[in-house]
Every structure is written in C-alpha cells, then in structure tokens.
C-alpha cells in the first residue's frame, strides 16, 4: 500500500508522535520528595508526577529528578514526557513559571481538543511541588 508518512498519527505533529514513541522519564521515584496526582480515570486521563528535590550550591531547591506515570491518550503521554524534560534540573521557582503554552510550543502544537492535556501536566507539576512544600 502506498502511504504518506505525514499522516501517521493523524492529528498530531511529528514532535508529538516522536515523544509518544519514545517518552522520557516514565516510571516511579522511590522516596519521592513530592507526588502530584491529577486527572480522572472516568475522563480517560490520569497523570502522576514524582519529583526528587535537592539543593544547589546556593541552597536553592531544584528538581533533581522527575518521573511520570500516565494513563491517557497520545497527547497526555507526550505532554507528560515534555514536562519532565522541561523542568528536570530547574530551580523550583523556575519550574513554576512553565505554562501550558510552553508545552504546546515544545510539541510543535497540539489539537485544540487536546489542550486540556497540557493543562493537566502543569497541574500535576504544581501538585507535586505543593506536596513537597507540605511535607517539608
């Protein structure tokens, strides 16, 4: 059959498809500093983010390690992977500045109907940091 590779994955950009194919940082972190659990299985998207926080030389908190576990569609898995890439190694104050638009931009765009997945990733990160702050 003659195929057009551009149509593989239908509505997603090549970057989304690449990320979905080879997601980074999935799995659990044992003894995580904070865990963010968002989404709802009834709606079909559940995202858990684990962060390991450490202090740099200036005694500032930074995200030393981050992992995700996600039940969801291609967009949910891709945004999970992208947010781990975007915040890994960053100071918490910087990580909190990341927006859903940063995620969408990094993925080269998302279908409008899937924007909520990028919001979910941001929410998961905020929840994980909140969890860390509460445990501190």
């Amino acid at each position: 059959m003659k195929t057009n590779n551009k149509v593989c994955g239908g509505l997603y950009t090549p970057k989304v498809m690449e990320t979905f194919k080879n997601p980074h940082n999935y799995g659990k972190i044992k003894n995580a500093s904070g865990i963010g659990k968002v989404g709802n299985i009834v709606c079909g998207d559940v995202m858990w983010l684990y962060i390991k926080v450490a202090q740099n030389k200036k005694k500032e908190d930074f995200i030393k390690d981050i992992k995700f576990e996600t039940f969801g569609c291609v967009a949910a898995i891709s945004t999970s992977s992208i947010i781990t890439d975007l915040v890994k190694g960053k100071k918490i104050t910087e990580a909190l500045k990341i927006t859903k638009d940063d995620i969408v931009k990094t993925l080269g765009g998302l279908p409008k109907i899937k924007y909520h997945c990028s919001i979910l990733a941001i929410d998961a990160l905020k929840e994980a940091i909140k969890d860390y702050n509460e445990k501190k």
Partner: protein
Amino acid sequence: MKKVYLDYAATTPVDKRVVKASEPFYTENFGNTMSLHSFGQEAKFYLDQSRQTLADLINAEPNELVFTGSATESNNTALKGCALRERSESKGKKNHIIISSIEHPCVVESAKWLKRQGFEITKLPVDEFGLVNPEDVKKAITEKTILVSVMHASNEIGTIEPIAEIGKICRQAGVYFHTDAVQSFGKIPIDVKRDNIDLLTASSHKMYGPKGIALLYIRDGVKIEPILHGGGQENGLRSSTVNVAAIVGFAKAADICKKEMSKEAKRLSKLRDKAIKNILKIKGAKLNGHPKKRLPNNINVSFPYIEGESLIIQLDMHGIACSTGSACSSIKLEPSYVLLAIGLKPEEAHGSLRISLGRFTTEKEINYLLKVLPKITKQLMAMSPFKNNEN
C-alpha cells in the same frame, strides 16, 4: 513496514472484480436512467438488473429497493420518512418511535431530530452482551407507535440482535419494523419476508463495493415521505440522478458476497475465535459483546488501565489499523455510548479495542497482531499509574 488493515467495520477496500464491473459505466454506459434514448435506456437496464441482484440477497422484490447516497441517508429516510408520513396519515394520533440504545449515531440523531418535531422517542436498554430483549419491544409499543428501529448487528461490539422475534412482534402489533443491517448485509443471511422486516438499510462500502451508494428496502405497502424532492427518481422516494456505476458495483459486490458468504463466514469466525482466545490471555483483557451471537468478523475487547487512542496509535506505528471506543479518539471526548449501554465503566470503555476482519485478512496477519498486541499493552501498562493495581 508491513501494513495490516483490521478495520473492515469502518470501511472495506473495493474488490477488484467490483471495480472491473463498474468501470464501463463511468466511460461508456454513462447515460442518465431518465433519458429516453438508447444511452439512458441501457443505463436503466443495468440499474434494473442490479436492483434485482441486490433484492435477491435479502429475499425482497426489486421494486422494494430505493438507492440512496449512504446508510446515513437510508436511516434518516426510514425514520423521518415513516414518522412524518404516519403522523400526518393518522392526523397526529401516532407520534411514537422506538429505537435501541446502541443504534448508530445516524439513527440516534434522526430520533433526536424527530423529538424536536414533537415525536415521542423510547430508547430500549440492552443487556450486558448488547442484546435487545424482544419482550421490552412488546412492552414499549403503544397505540401511538409508528416504528421500531433495532439494528441487525452492532457496528461496535458485533452482537447480532434477535430481529426475527422483534419483527414478529412488530408485525402482530401493526407497527413498522426497521433494521439497520449495514454490518450484517452480505456477511450473514437476511430474509426480509421470513423476519417480517418492513424497512432495511444496507451500505455498499462495508461489503467491498464503492462508497457513496446504499439502499433502503421499503416493503411494498409501507408508505414513507421522501426527504429529497425533485425529478422523481426511485419511484419518487429519492430524487437525484441515479449513480448507475456505483449501483452496478454495489450489485456485483452483493453477488460476490452471496456466493462466498457461508465459506467466508466460517473462515472469518475461525480467525476471530483464534484471535479472541489469544487476546484474552493478556492480563485483564475482557471481551465486549456476545460470545456466540456475534458477527463473524468482529472482535471487541477492553484492557483495564490502558487508553484506547494510545493503543490505536501504537498499533498504527506497527502498521496495524484498528479502532476504539475511547473518549480521547472522539470529537466529543465522550466514551462510546454503546459500551456504556452494555454496562462498561467509562474507564473500561476508554480501554476498548475493535478489531474487524474481512475478505483480505489472512491468518498470518492475525498472528502478527497477536505478536504485537501483548507487547504494546505491556508497554502502555508500564507507563500507567495503575500498573500495580490488582483489579
């Protein structure tokens, strides 16, 4: 990459024999069936011949078939055409339509439209396998009922409905019975006379014919209001220049199906059962639909804690084409109402996979699917937060 098409319930490739049969009707015998000259009359001859072939497949009379542009149009015409005509004939006394809760969207949406025009709609429940209980049909019929519409076989879960029993009940009660036979036409035997069917929808592109052509069987004596008005083609019931090339193809496709039906049904059932048996070995996998009363080519399974769109795209990356009832794959972001109607939880519906086999499916392809699928489900499960859940 190897390409494996396992989405025959969505659409089928046109059989080469069908293409060959249709071809002259695009270039040589292109006449308009309404023309009086030889070009038109020749087209009319082949139209009539095709109508006979298609009627034969369901034991109907040729004058009982109306060609339409799609199954959606046929179903719209059946519901709206009957409802509007009967309400007007009964001077408004009759205004009730009964459908099942697992009908195709074109039936559901037609019923919704009728509701907005003042009709009463009853949606019948189905059991855990997707079966309508004929007793429920009996109970739902009132003196206001015009039409009962229950599909012959489900496009999603493949369950074959007891249409003969429902037909009998409707005939005894004096209400029309319509069945959407899009998924069963050409695959399993249908007899409109034996089963007391008043209206039946079938589509060409689900059985190796071209797209853009379908039919509505309307039993002689059933009166309907046309949706399209114009030149009066198709006995005044569907004005539009008749698409002879597509109809000739549709008839050829039906002819092939008729000749190969019993052998093909056996072959596909065997492949289906082999696939089901092996897929159910995947942890947590569950069959949706009836284990026995099932289309020979339909497989529908749910995997817990795996989302369907991810599954479909992963399969696609391995060259395998299937479909899902997951919300994420739909425009509305709602899971399949058919899967919810058979009692699945939304999370189970999200993890559903429909595999539909067809004429060109080989055992080798099924083996490839059975090799790839467990790997993919494992991979997606590894990413899922629920992987340690013992449910």
